[in-house]
């Protein structure tokens, strides 16, 4: 075959083949691991937080090509954001940055959002001084 056909668009394929930020952060400030009840995928995001900002983000994913690409893109997008900004992160950002996902794979981007929020909640839990407000309220206040 002379042409190459791909299941996903070139951006998704690129992030699947060469994922950014794959791995774990040693002694991470926040770790979130979530699973998708629907398909069985599992995603783990760990964060390094410095001066209220996300200094580093890494992922590990048990899942399909779009789940791996979604976690790669999500970790790219959130680096440098403040905690409040990150709390407002939505899966739509991942979908848009990836140039779209097939409808049946949108839930992969939702999983990335949930893994990130679970990691942020883990960080907030470890820092009671931030826990005066619930994460959602912090987000609203911001």
């Amino acid at each position, binding site marked *: 075959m002379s042409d190459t056909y791909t299941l996903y668009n070139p951006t998704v394929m690129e992030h699947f083949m060469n994922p950014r930020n794959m791995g774990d952060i040693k002694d991470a400030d926040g770790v979130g*691991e979530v*699973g998708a009840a629907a398909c069985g995928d599992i995603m783990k995001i760990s964060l390094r937080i410095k001066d209220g900002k996300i200094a580093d983000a890494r992922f590990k994913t048990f899942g399909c090509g779009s789940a791996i690409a979604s976690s790669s893109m999500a970790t790219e997008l959130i680096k440098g954001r403040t905690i409040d900004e990150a709390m407002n992160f939505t899966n739509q950002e991942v979908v848009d940055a990836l140039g779209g996902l097939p409808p049946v794979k949108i839930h992969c981007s939702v999983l990335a959002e949930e893994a990130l929020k679970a990691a942020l909640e883990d960080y907030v839990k470890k820092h009671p001084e931030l826990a005066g407000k619930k994460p959602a309220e912090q987000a609203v206040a911001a």
Partner: protein
Amino acid sequence: MRNVYLDHQSSTPVLPEVFDVMKPYFTEAFGNPSSLHQYGLRVRDALKKARQQMAALIHAESEEEIFFTSDGTESANLAIKGVAYANERKGKHLVVSATEHPSVIQSVEFLEKQGWTCTRVPVNPEGIVDLEALRAAITPQTVLVALHHVNHDIGTIQPVVEAGKICAALAVPLYVDCEASAGWLPIDVKEFGAALVSFSPHRFYGPKGVGVLYRNRKARIVSILHGGVQEGGRRAGTENVPAIVGGGEAAEIALREQPARAEHTGRLQRRLWEGLRTQIPYIKLNGPEPGPTRVPTNLNLSTEFIEGEGQLLLCDLNGIAVASGSSCVSKSLKISHVLGAIGLDHALAQGNIIMTLGKDNTDEDVDYTVETFAKIVTKLRGMSPMWDEFQKGVIDSVIAPTGRGKSFSQHAAEVSGKAAH
């Protein structure tokens, strides 16, 4: 990069000699076989020859027992619904194995909505149907038993001869779906005691667009597609003549070459499985070991701690074409019902890959696949939190339990507290 096609269960290339015999029927011998002039009569004779070739492949007594449809799915629909509707007054009960192809299962579910009932007979962990349960499921209202010859997913060969004896003793017709076996294993409809058999030539180097349904003259069946009186009134619609002619040729060649093809793929099948199991830890073969109860083309594998679609994509990017029954690959987000029916742990069903060999695969193809697949598994495990957690003793292996940690399923349930949808 080497290109290795390992999805012969989904389709095969048309043989050049098959394509050659098809060509005149597109341009020159284009007549409608129902027409009564020279153009039609010529084509009618070509269909008769193809019918004889199909009959010979499955050792049917007469070509008059062969009906042409559009594909295997239509043949299965005609077998199930056609028999059910024809015998409505006798009874409205069907018996099928739990691991039939979706074309059988969905046809049965369609009938269930209209008042039929169906008993699904369980299979053992290797996918072999429970014959005693099959016998016990048959009632005086049963009008059809459906049991496939070879499973489309895990390659299990069913005890169809024994099932045929049970059905004969209880005077219930048996339908044997031979989609995954025709051309690769010998088929004898009389030995099977089968009233109906279906298969498609595109699984054995013939073209797509034609399916075959064998029907023993004693089995009552009505048409489910209405119109003209083609195919003895059992299947309306103009026949796909080029595909039927090509399919007949492919059947004739398959009958002749079947032992050599099976011997060749069987040898490669053992080489492939031997290579994979020695190179890759925590890999499992689903279905029987290569041998008398497994079709000599199929390997259905579960590789632990990683998911199937990633394996499939990376295989494809390395020139290796494979299939998967994991939920991420299916549009319904459900694992293959066959993997569920054999009681495979969900963690293993997720990491599922199906490799099916063909007559043109070589030792080099197999060795390249083993080497490449081992690298793919290592890469994906490096990305997988489950592999990491297994190393740390947080979760345990299903394939080779260490006794440390909780099960994958328990862990997955804990982290999935919040559903993604």
